[in-house]
C-alpha cells in the first residue's frame, strides 16, 4: 500500500477556515436558480417565500455546498477558485467519489457564511485490477455569523494509481 504513506496519514485533522467577506445576498440564490433551470419562486419572490413561512427569499439548498463565494480566493490557471487541499500524488488520477449533505436550515440573504473544512479520514484500497487507490474524506461545516449550523458536506476524493504508475 505505497500510496498510504505516513505523510498522507498525517493529513487527517488538517483544517482550513474561510469566512465570507460579506453577506450571502439575495442575487446569489436567484442566479443559481437561473443557472440550473430551477425557477422556484422561493428564490426570487419574497412575498411568496414569506407566505410559505420563510423570512424572505432563500437559495436552492445545495448552493451553500457548491459555491466558492465564501472562499474569496484568486482565480488560478485552471480556473478553480475554491477550497483545495493541494494534495498531488504522482502516478495517479484524481476522481470525485461523492457528496453527503446535511442541511440544517435554508440560507438567508443576510447570512455571513463561515466554512470549516477538515480532512476526516484517509484510506488505502486496491481495485479488482490490482491498482491502488487512496480515498481522502473531508467534511465542510457551514455556519452563520452566530456559529449556528447551516449545512454539512462530506465528500470523498479518490486518487487511483495509473497503469504502470504512469
Amino acid at each position, binding site marked *: 500500500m505505497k500510496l498510504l504513506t505516513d505523510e498522507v496519514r498525517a493529513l487527517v485533522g488538517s483544517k482550513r477556515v474561510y469566512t465570507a467577506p460579506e453577506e450571502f445576498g439575495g442575487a446569489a440564490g436567484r442566479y443559481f436558480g437561473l443557472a*440550473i433551470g430551477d425557477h422556484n419562486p422561493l428564490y426570487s419572490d419574497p412575498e411568496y417565500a414569506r407566505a410559505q413561512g420563510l423570512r424572505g427569499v432563500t437559495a436552492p439548498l445545495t448552493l451553500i*455546498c457548491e459555491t*466558492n463565494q465564501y472562499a474569496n480566493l484568486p482565480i488560478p490557471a485552471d480556473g478553480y477558485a475554491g477550497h483545495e487541499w493541494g494534495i498531488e500524488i504522482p502516478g495517479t488520477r484524481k476522481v470525485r467519489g461523492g457528496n453527503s449533505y446535511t442541511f440544517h436550515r435554508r440560507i438567508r440573504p443576510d447570512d455571513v457564511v463561515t466554512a470549516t473544512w477538515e480532512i476526516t479520514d484517509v484510506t488505502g484500497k486496491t481495485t479488482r485490477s490490482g491498482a491502488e487507490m487512496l480515498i481522502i474524506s473531508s467534511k465542510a461545516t457551514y455556519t452563520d455569523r452566530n456559529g449556528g449550523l447551516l449545512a454539512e458536506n462530506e465528500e470523498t476524493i479518490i486518487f487511483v494509481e495509473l497503469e504502470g504508475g504512469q
Partner: protein
Amino acid sequence: MTEAGKYAVGTFSVGDTVPPLERRIGLADMVAYAGATWDWYRLHYDPEYVKKAQVPGPVVDGQVFGALLVEQIQDWLGPQSFVHKLDFTFKALVFAEEIVRCEGSVTEVGEDYLVLEQRVVVVGPDGEAARVAAAPARARVLLGTPDGPAAG
C-alpha cells in the same frame, strides 16, 4: 396537503414514484453555473483545456446533480417540505448538451418524513437511460415544514 401544511395519512406509500425531472445541460447553462458557483474550472467550458484532458467535450460539474435531485423533490412535494439529507455517488461523466434525468421512488414513509432513493441518468436518443451519472442517491425529506430544524 391540508392547510396546516401536513400531508394526510396515506398520501405516500413505499414504492411511489417521484415524478422524473429531465434537463438538457447546454454549454451556456454550464457557463452560467460556473459564474453562479464562483467555480471557473476550465474543464467545464474551455475547448483547449478539454482537448488536453482527452475527454469528448466540456464536462458538466457533477455537483449540479445534487441541485437537480433537490429540485426534483421540491417540485414534487412543494414548499412545505425540506430536504434534510442528501447523498450521492458519481458514476460517469456527463458532457455539454447531454440530457440528464433524475429518477426516484419512496423507500420509507414516516409520520413527518420520507426517504427516497434516486439516481441521475443520461438519456439516450431512444429516451432510455444510456448510462448512470450518479447513483446511488438517497434523500431524507421532512414534511410539513418549509425550513430545517435549525430555522428557529
